[in-house]
């Protein structure tokens, strides 16, 4: 069987506490093993940097939102073109790449796993159709529950067993990995063009509050022993002053005990939710308050949602915020309401360094990462493609590693930014180990996929390995940031499941990855009550029949199913 030996690797593997040790890594049949035989293919890393394959816990890579982004933005698809070869299909797009470029570009950067951040259950088949065509990387997706009628009805009637039964059924129906909550309750309010204003503002017609939705789903999530915690996109995103809602949302889950060795709450793209001030005119960074909370509490994790200047395609299940964005910017606007379940909006925009609003947003993302002491608590993301496309991760990595790199960027940014942010005064520079945490190890831990062999290089792990053309002991990342960025953009080798899939940033093989999803057994009478309610909703309110609703096995050809039980 296939064997590989990577010699002289300078390894950073934070899950196993390996911090820059010079060592060999042996691979057999797609897994990391203790040692390799003499017949193994040998790769001499020559002391170069070796990380576990990158993991992206929050990225919009597939489904109807992404595709409406492509359809409404032919000008974006005209970027990044690369003709087909004997091995690869054609690449298109920058913020909304086609399915092929989506996988190839992750692999070219040494990333081997990415999770789609929002699956509406009714449109999950579409999401999986795209996921199935994204080459190389392993995938999973988070299912939307935050404005779902079944969820809100069960919560209003204080029936947590029924709620759990529905969450389990919804994860099965969508072949999802975790519970995503976007602007809880707001998606339903948006059904009539309204929104919820805060955690205690009841959802019209449903008489539950966003606070109840978050709390109940978080409790149920832990009782279901799901690999991932709830994954929350807070209310009031994109509004000055929203940091107070964000802090209050954190508090809702403070006393919830995680059922596994991970957080009990993950709050996503917090950059967009750490804003002070009362209006656009006095908007300021409140990352200090957010980071302070994180420094005092270890039950939660966040991801950055870093902004990258240039073109972005914003896409979210937060429908009302997208309408507000589009009106404010006079931009194109697509909306996608999903009956009984949720909504979404897509709006293209351009982030300008000379806009202090955008400058502040840029600063907040980095501040969150740099002011929070524990690197495991803040994942590096751009909320692709909301803050900017993931191909810019290497640049963001260098900004975390080098104050000089940040200063170079700051020189382009509107001065007013620095009256409202603290980024200019932050000296912290992350090291190779921190970056390994923020771009792979912590993502795997937060998602709960360490057990699936992701995010580390211990024996038994998937042989997903990135070798970068950089010698850590000879490279000063605080100064040589251009060199570091170039190395992270094009891995020397990306190895996926023991196969070299990219070499010097060129794709060399295109195996198809697997899809993770969770199946939870709910064995109590809540299941019966849930089914009665569900059948009624299909009979009266859904526009499709229940028998045709659930994603069929044909749409997930290479599944990895994790079983759990509700207690």
């Amino acid at each position, binding site marked *: 069987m296939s064997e590989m030996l990577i010699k002289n690797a300078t390894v950073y593997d934070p899950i196993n506490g390996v911090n820059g040790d010079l060592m060999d890594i042996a691979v057999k049949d797609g897994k990391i093993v203790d040692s390799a035989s003499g017949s193994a293919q040998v790769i001499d890393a020559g002391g170069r940097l070796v990380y576990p394959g990158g993991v992206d816990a929050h990225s919009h890579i*597939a489904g109807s939102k*992404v*595709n*409406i982004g*492509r*359809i*409404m*933005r*032919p000008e*974006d*698809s*005209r970027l990044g*073109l690369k*003709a*087909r070869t004997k091995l690869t*299909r*054609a690449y*298109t*797009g920058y913020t*909304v*790449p*086609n399915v*092929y470029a989506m996988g190839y570009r992750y692999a070219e950067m040494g990333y081997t796993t990415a999770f789609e951040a929002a699956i509406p259950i*009714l*449109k999950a*088949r*579409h999401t999986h*159709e*795209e996921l199935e*065509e994204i080459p190389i990387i392993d995938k999973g997706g988070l299912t939307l529950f935050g404005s779902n009628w079944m969820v809100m009805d069960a919560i209003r009637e204080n029936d947590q067993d029924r709620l759990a039964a529905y969450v389990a059924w919804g994860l099965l129906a969508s072949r999802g990995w975790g519970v995503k909550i976007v602007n809880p309750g707001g998606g339903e309010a*948006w*059904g*009539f*063009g309204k929104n919820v204003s805060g955690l205690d503002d009841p959802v019209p*017609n449903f008489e539950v509050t966003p606070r109840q939705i978050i709390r109940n789903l978080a409790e149920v999530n832990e009782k279901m022993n799901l690999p991932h915690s709830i994954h929350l996109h807070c209310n009031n995103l994109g509004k000055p002053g929203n940091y107070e809602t964000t802090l209050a949302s954190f508090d809702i889950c403070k006393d919830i005990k995680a059922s596994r060795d991970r957080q009990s709450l993950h709050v996503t793209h917090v950059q967009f939710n750490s804003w002070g001030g009362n209006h656009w005119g006095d908007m300021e960074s409140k990352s200090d308050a957010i980071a302070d909370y994180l420094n005092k509490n270890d039950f939660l994790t966040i991801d950055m949602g870093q902004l990258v200047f240039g073109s972005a395609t914003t896409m979210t299940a937060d429908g009302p915020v997208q*309408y507000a964005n*589009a*009106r404010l910017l006079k931009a*194109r*606007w*697509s*909306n*996608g*309401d*999903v*009956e*009984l379940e949720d*909504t979404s909006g*897509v*709006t293209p925009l351009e982030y300008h360094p000379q806009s202090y609003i955008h400058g502040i947003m840029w600063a907040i993302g980095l501040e969150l990462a740099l002011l929070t002491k524990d690197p495991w608590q803040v994942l590096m993301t751009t909320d692709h493609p909301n803050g900017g496309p993931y191909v810019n991760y290497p640049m963001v990595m260098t900004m975390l590693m080098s104050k000089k790199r940040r200063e170079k960027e700051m020189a382009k940014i509107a001065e007013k930014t620095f009256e409202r942010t603290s980024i200019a005064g932050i000296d912290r520079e992350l090291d190779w180990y921190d970056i390994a945490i923020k771009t792979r190890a912590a993502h795997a831990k937060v998602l709960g996929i360490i057990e699936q062999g992701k995010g580390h290089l211990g024996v038994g792990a998937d042989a997903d390995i990135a070798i970068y053309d950089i010698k850590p002991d000879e490279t000063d990342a605080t100064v040589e940031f251009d060199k570091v960025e170039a190395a992270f953009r094009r891995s020397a080798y990306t190895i996926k499941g023991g196969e070299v899939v990219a070499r010097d940033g060129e794709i060399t093989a295109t195996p198809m990855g697997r899809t993770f999803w969770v199946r939870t057994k709910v064995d109590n009478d809540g299941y019966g009550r849930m089914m009665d309610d569900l059948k009624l909703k299909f009979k*009266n*309110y*859904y*526009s*499709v*029949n229940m*028998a*045709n609703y659930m994603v*069929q096995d*044909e749409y997930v050809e290479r599944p990895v199913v994790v079983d759990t039980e509700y207690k």
Partner: protein
Amino acid sequence: MIIKDVLCPFCGCLCDDLAVEVVDNKVVDVKHACKIGASKIRGHDRIKAPMMRDDKKGEFREVSYDEAINESAKILANSKRPLLYGWASGVCEMMKKGVLLTEEVGGIIDNTASVCHGPSALGVHEKGLPTGTLGQFANRADVVVFWGCNPVQAHPRHMGRYSVFTKGFFANKGRRSRKVVVFDVRKTDTANLADEYVQVNPGEDYMVLSALRAIVAEKGDVVPETVGGVPKEKLVEVAETMKGAQFGIVYFGMGLTQSRGKYKNIDNAVSLVTELNAHGKHSIIPMRGHYNVTGFGQVCAWETGFVNAVDMSRGYPYYNPGETCSNDLLMREEIDAAFIIAGDAGAHFPAQSIARMGKVPVINIDPFHSASTEMANIVIPTKVSGVELEGTAYRMDGVSLRMRKLVDVDFPSDEEVLDKIIAKVQEIKGASS
């Protein structure tokens, strides 16, 4: 045996509540479907075997699948500017193979939307598309507008299942919960069922939309006494109805996309709906024709970045409607071979395009005899998707569903034929490079 929850392979409504009775591998009864859907499921005029002819005026001779497939591959592989058109009445699985075949031969792939809702896509490029799923409109809409479409004839169950007569959670009195407005150049059967019928002069929809936008924006004083044949009084009344909606929905058809103004009409309609969202909630949705014409746009977009009319001759996708649509290419006489599948160019293209197709080799893949068959040199019959084959289709609102198989037949699927053509093309191209 009665098979339930069957999807209908006819129009963009993609009804999924049919009950089909099958006896001895034959469809004997179709329940809940409209007459057109039932007729398609029952089947008619099947092409029995592959056929070929050199002279388009001559008679076809029956050939084997292998011969027809190999000959098709030869034509495509040796063509400099092949057009691969249709891709509507089939499942997504075959559309993916269609994109791949187009890449292999460096051709142009274009879908029936080209002569239908293609301008809608251009409108979306300009303004986006505030929309939703059909159940959202069924549950909520209290003002329903049909513009340049006639569902009574073209989407027979639409008004019953999704838009007008159905009861929803909020619109719980069905028809009585909704005010229905129809804009059309003629008083259609749909207009006969409306609360308000607004007769628009042919080709003047754009002006009417602009007038409505002005009135909604409280700039009605700039609107003249009559616009597009509609008295201002009526426009004000309708604008107030739309503005007063809790949830308004605009369904539009080819009366808007293929009349004067084309994509600009859609741009204007989307703008009107977007602006109305400052008042209540409003959405807009194209009434797509073939049951999976929407699916092609989805597949083509995620595979090539573009929704339709994609030229792969450069090795990467190139999209420029006006240059790369079927009729642009045919009228410029660029096309030197045509591959028509799951759509009928022969019935829907203008004479000038048909004339060009008369001069080049044409391959037609279809279970049924059509006008395109008349122009073909090679005809390859395949399974009827959704009756004889499972697969994915996208409803007009982008909800994808899995079509069921009802009976077994010996015909190959579109996908199987495409796979064999692709393999043969690769063999021919591999040998020559």
